[in-house]
Every structure is written in structure tokens, then in C-alpha cells.
């Protein structure tokens, strides 16, 4: 029942905002529906953490601890993003860059986007999951191109062309998994349900599964933003409106990663650990190296945040490659921590862009002196994202490295730490340039309205709280890790 509410409520709000001309109240209504999603996600988690999975519509929807955790992630970052969307749209309308009609389209698309992500993590069937992930691509293309500038059109073209190709590969991978399931002798009613695939995973034909898993890593990896399929990511994330960037970077990438985690569990059964691990280690390390080298010379702070996502997706791939319960629990905590920190940073960068009118790092100086609230949030967000305590990314990165060392991937962990050190230096120097120094004499200190800062500070406090006390999340993380861990 809760699972149906989770899907129906944001979808209904999407329909409402599509037909009515946009007003602030409708924006707040949309935010409230994502709040409902978050609450329902917590309710679902409480029920499945020690109990059996919940199913609805004859197994079409299936909620286990992993799905419930992902609903919480989507709800939490969705809440931040839709909250800021109200302000974003008001400002765009006030500045004459957007009409009310256009704004209601934006609002409806964001609701549809969130609903599609929720469907992807709640689907009990890997085919339906695929359809939902592809639907997110189509919906977000319009959101990336929302501003209708030359740059945003180019970004949305690149985005849909590359991601459609990627997701087509994932479809072929899914078809091949289905083919392998059809040819498991005793299993007459083969289907694409996640549970029945897991049940037969040890009997799936290894030759076909090897090809299938490689295609799935390439395909879903494109949406995750793993190198070398990441080239759409910095363009799309830097051109989209800030709340959309927050949603894409904070959750969409990890929803695709969730699909990879599910398929990795099936591939582990069919192929043993070595092959899936090798693919994920290769993709993870390459992503880290690419991110490190491109962050060094980055001139645009939105692109800097985007490449930072490539780094974090690489870390997640390495963690998943290790695959032990400790590693997967750390991966999941990292998904939530990264989502919150990255969401806050993209939303803050939207405010900075609005206030300063540029995305160039070189043009922005002395934020802390001139706009203390925005500068402070941006600074703490960077600290969180770089994995310093007390934020939860510190804990999750530490545990991923520990888990990797335990399974003999210490060398990969060492390379990843080296890349992280380079990134740390690069981002620190960019951040220092933007934050410190003294503003021009006589310029007054700009205040930022509380309606903007409250959710951003809330997100950072949540991220820090997760790093200090694991309760009440730890039993959920452990239960969710059990679903896909080795």
C-alpha cells in the first residue's frame, strides 16, 4: 500500500501542475508530495528492515531493504531540490526568462522525473526497471534544455544521444539475461523478476552472462557517469537549472548505480566474483583518473561539481567491486551522503550563479566576506564532499577502503586514495579562490533569505549527523547490503 502511495502522490502532483498555471502554492504542494515520499520511505524501511519484502500488483512492485533505502535517498534529495525549485521558478518568472506556462511544464517534468526514479527502485522486474531508467532520460532531456540557450540545447542533445545509446546496451544486456534464464532447464516459467533471476543465478549460462554483464556495465554505467562513458555528464549538469542538477547528480546517477548493484548480484552467482569485479575495478579506476585530471584545470564551478560526481561514482564502483557486506553498506551510506552534499552544493551554486551572474571560478572572489551564508554553505559542502570528518562521506570512504583491502584490492584502494589526494588539492585551491579574500571596499554584505539557507543547512547537518551516529540507519544499511552482497 505504502509503495503505491509513494508512486501515486508525486505523480498526481505532476498532473496537477501540468494542467494548472504555475503558482507558488503549486510549487509548495509539489515539495510537500516529496516530503510524503520521504516519510513513506521511512515507513517502508521500518517494515522491511526485519521483515519480508513487501509486494504489490502481483510482484510488479517489490520493496526490500535496498529499495526502501533508495526511496529514502530519492525522497531526501528530492525534498531539497523541489524546495529550491519554487524559488528558482519565481526568480525566472520575475526576470522574464520564463512564463507561467513554461514553469508549470518544469514542475510537471520534475515530478515525473522523481516518479520515474521511484519506479526504477521499486520495480520487481528488471525489464520494468529498465523502462523507468530510460523514462528518466527522456524526461530530464527537456529539463536540461529548459533554458533554451545554445549551450543547454547542445548539452541536452549530447545527453539524450549518449544516454539512449548506453541504455540501449543495457536493454540488450537485459535481453541476454532473459535468454540465459529461458535456457535454465527445469525452469519453465522464466521471467524477468528480480527474485526468480536470483533464484536461478547459479545455473545461468556463463558465456551468455559474461556478454550480458559487460553490456549492462557499459549501458547502466553510461547513466552512472562512469568513464569512459561520462562525457555527457559535465555538460548536462552544468547547463541544467540548479535544482535539476542537484537531482541528477545527487540521485539519478545512483539510481542507475542501484540497477548495476542488482545485476552484479546475479552475475556473481552465474560467473563467480572475478569477472564482475574486474570490470567494476577498471571502470572505477578510470573514472577516478579522468576526474582527477580534469578537475585540476577546471575553470567553471558547476563543471567542477559535475566532475566531482564522476569521482564519487568511481569510488562507488570500487566499493561494489569489493562486494562484501561491509563494502556494500559503505557504498549505500556513500550514496546518501554524496547525494545530500552534492545536492546542497548544486543548489548553492545555483544561488551563486543567480547572485553573481557567472559560473567562472576566476570571476568569483571573497564569497565568505561578501555573502557569508552562501559562502559558508558552499565551503562546508566542499569539505563534506572531499570526505573530511564529521561528514558521513569520511566514514563511508574509510569503510570502502577497508573492505577493498580485505578482499585483496588494496592496490586499487591505494590508487583511489592517490586520485582523491590530487582532487582534494585541486578542489581546495578552486574553493579557496572563490571563498576567501576581502571584497571591494564599501560593498555591503549581502544577506541570503532564510527560505534558501534553511534546507541547505538542513542537508549538511543531516550529512554530518550520519557521519557521527550511524543509528537509526545502520540496521537498514546492513539489511540492504545483505540483499546484494556476496
Amino acid at each position, binding site marked *: 500500500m505504502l509503495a503505491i502511495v509513494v508512486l501515486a502522490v508525486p505523480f498526481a502532483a505532476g498532473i496537477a501542475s501540468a494542467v494548472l498555471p504555475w503558482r507558488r502554492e503549486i510549487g509548495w504542494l509539489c515539495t510537500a508530495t516529496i516530503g510524503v515520499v520521504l516519510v513513506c520511505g521511512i515507513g517502508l524501511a521500518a517494515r522491511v528492515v526485519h521483515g519480508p519484502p513487501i509486494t504489490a500488483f502481483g510482484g510488479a512492485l517489490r520493496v526490500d531493504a535496498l529499495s526502501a533505502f533508495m526511496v529514502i535517498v530519492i525522497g531526501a534529495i528530492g525534498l531539497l531540490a523541489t524546495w529550491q525549485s519554487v524559488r528558482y521558478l519565481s526568480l525566472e518568472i520575475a526576470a522574464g526568462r520564463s512564463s507561467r506556462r513554461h514553469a508549470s511544464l518544469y514542475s510537471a517534468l520534475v515530478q515525473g522525473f522523481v516518479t520515474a526514479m521511484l519506479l526504477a527502485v521499486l520495480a520487481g522486474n528488471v525489464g520494468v526497471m529498465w523502462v523507468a531508467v530510460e523514462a528518466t532520460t527522456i524526461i530530464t532531456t527537456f529539463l536540461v534544455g529548459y533554458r533554451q540557450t545554445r549551450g543547454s540545447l547542445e548539452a541536452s542533445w*549530447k545527453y539524450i544521444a549518449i544516454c539512449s545509446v548506453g541504455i540501449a546496451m543495457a536493454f540488450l544486456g537485459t535481453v541476454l539475461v*532473459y535468454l540465459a534464464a529461458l535456457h535454465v532447464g527445469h525452469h519453465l516459467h522464466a521471467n524477468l523478476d528480480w527474485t526468480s533471476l536470483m533464484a536461478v543465478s547459479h545455473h545461468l*549460462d556463463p*558465456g551468455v552472462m559474461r556478454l550480458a554483464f559487460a553490456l549492462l556495465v557499459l549501458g547502466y554505467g553510461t547513466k552512472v557517469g562512469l568513464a569512459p562513458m561520462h562525457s555527457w555528464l559535465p555538460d548536462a549538469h552544468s547547463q541544467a537549472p540548479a535544482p535539476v542538477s542537484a537531482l541528477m547528480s545527487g540521485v539519478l546517477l545512483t539510481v542507475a548505480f542501484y540497477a548495476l548493484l542488482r545485476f552484479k548480484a546475479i552475475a556473481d552467482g552465474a560467473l563467480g566474483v572475478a569477472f564482475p569485479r574486474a570490470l567494476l575495478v577498471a571502470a572505477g579506476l578510470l573514472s577516478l583518473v579522468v576526474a582527477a585530471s580534469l578537475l585540476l584545470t577546471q575553470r567553471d564551478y558547476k563543471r567542477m561539481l559535475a566532475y566531482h560526481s564522476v569521482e564519487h561514482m568511481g569510488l562507488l564502483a570500487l566499493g561494489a567491486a569489493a562486494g562484501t557486506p561491509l563494502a556494500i553498506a559503505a557504498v549505500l551510506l556513500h550514496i546518501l551522503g554524496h547525494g545530500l552534499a552534492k545536492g546542497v552544493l548544486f543548489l548553492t551554486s545555483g544561488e551563486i550563479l543567480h547572485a553573481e551572474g557567472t559560473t567562472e571560478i576566476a570571476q568569483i572572489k571573497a564569497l565568505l566576506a561578501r555573502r557569508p551564508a552562501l559562502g559558508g554553505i558552499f565551503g562546508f559542502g566542499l569539505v563534506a564532499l572531499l570526505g573530511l570528518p564529521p561528514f558521513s562521506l569520511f566514514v563511508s570512504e574509510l569503510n570502502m577502503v577497508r573492505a577493498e583491502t580485505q578482499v585483496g584490492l588494496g592496490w586499487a584502494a591505494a590508487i583511489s586514495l592517490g586520485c582523491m589526494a590530487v582532487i582534494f588539492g585541486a578542489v581546495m585551491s578552486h574553493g579557496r579562490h572563490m571563498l576567501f579574500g576581502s571584497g571591494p571596499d564599501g560593498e555591503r554584505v549581502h544577506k541570503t533569505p532564510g527560505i534558501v539557507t534553511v534546507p541547505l543547512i538542513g542537508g549538511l547537518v543531516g550529512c554530518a549527523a550520519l557521519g557521527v551516529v550511524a543509528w537509526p540507519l545502520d540496521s537498514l544499511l546492513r539489511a540492504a547490503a545483505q540483499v546484494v552482497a556476496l
Partner: protein
Amino acid sequence: MSGSAYASSLELASGVVLVCAVVTLWRRSLSAIVKALAVQGVALGVVALILGVGKHDGVLIAVACLVIAAKGVVIPVLLGRVVAGDPASREAAPIVNVPASLVGAGALTFLAYGATGSVVALIPTTAGRLIPLGFATMLIGYFAMAVRRKAVSQIVGLLLVDNGIALVAFLATAGVPLLVELGASLDVLLAVVVLRVLAAQMWSKFGVLDLDEMRELHD
């Protein structure tokens, strides 16, 4: 349908799918490319139709009719409108010239046979033997997207990829479950519509249909 007629018609229809993919690399007039794509869509539907009739599978026959309608008619018409609006509707300077592209297509077909050995080994039927043709079509689609710079050519490349995958799906499993099949076709149709809308916006706002002229974003 007798056994040999079934096998040879299946081979013919699957072969046409691959040949049409090669034709899109060979021709440089965009309207000819779109026509090849329409023929390919119909051939793909015919493959599903033959399989459906052979297995007495009503659902598959219905899917086949949908495929013919969507990929043989609707999508080519949509693309044709974009081509008609663009006066210079030729792939003027592909990154790789036509003879080299054709050699590439041959190499990719070999690669497809090499990569699908394990899949073919699992299905000892006529349909199973034809699976590499679907893979080859898909790879040619990727190749076309990589070396062609016109907006329409890239959409065509994406559709080649999709048709190749659909051919594999039909031959290997007689189609994935209907719900997934419908979802997948609808998504591809929507992706093409979205790309078409984007192409129209590029054209009306900036007078560009050539992706080489869209070079704002870089590091």
C-alpha cells in the same frame, strides 16, 4: 509454413535488416538514408511476424504489426519532415569517408560473429544462427553515430542500434515479455521524438543542423 520456407524467409528478412544498415553508411543523401531505415523497420517486423506464425504466438504477431507501424511508417515519416526542412540534406563531410565506412561495416560484422559465439551455441535453431546479424546492425549503428555529424544521421544511428537489439531480442527469445517490449518501443519512439524536437529547436533558433557547429561546451 514448411520448414525450409520458414528458415529461408527468416534468413532473408534478417539479412535485409543488416543490408539496410550498410546502405545507410553507403548513401549520403539523408532522404535515401531515411528510406533505408523504413525498409529496415518493415523487415524487422517481418522477422517477428515469421517467428510468431511459426510458433502460433498471437501476441508476437500483434507485436510484429506494431513494429511495422512504428518503425516502418511513423518514425521514418517524422524523420522525413526534418530532412525536408533542411535544404542541404546531405551528409557533407562524414569523419570517415564512404569506402572506409563500408570496410568498417564488414569488420564490425566479423566482430559481431566473434562476440556472439556463446549466445549462438545456446540456441541451436535457424533463429539462433541469425543472432550475429542483429549484433552487426547494432555495431554499425554505433559506428554511424560516431562518424556522422548531421543531427538526422545521429538519430538514424540510434535507430540502427535499436533495430539491431530488437532483432536480437526477437531471434533469441521470441521477444521479451510484452510489457517490457511495449515499454521499450515506446521509450525509443519518445527518444526519437525528443531528438526531433531538439533538432527543430536548433534549426529555428540558431539555424544549425550540424553538430560540428554546436561547440559551446568544452573543458
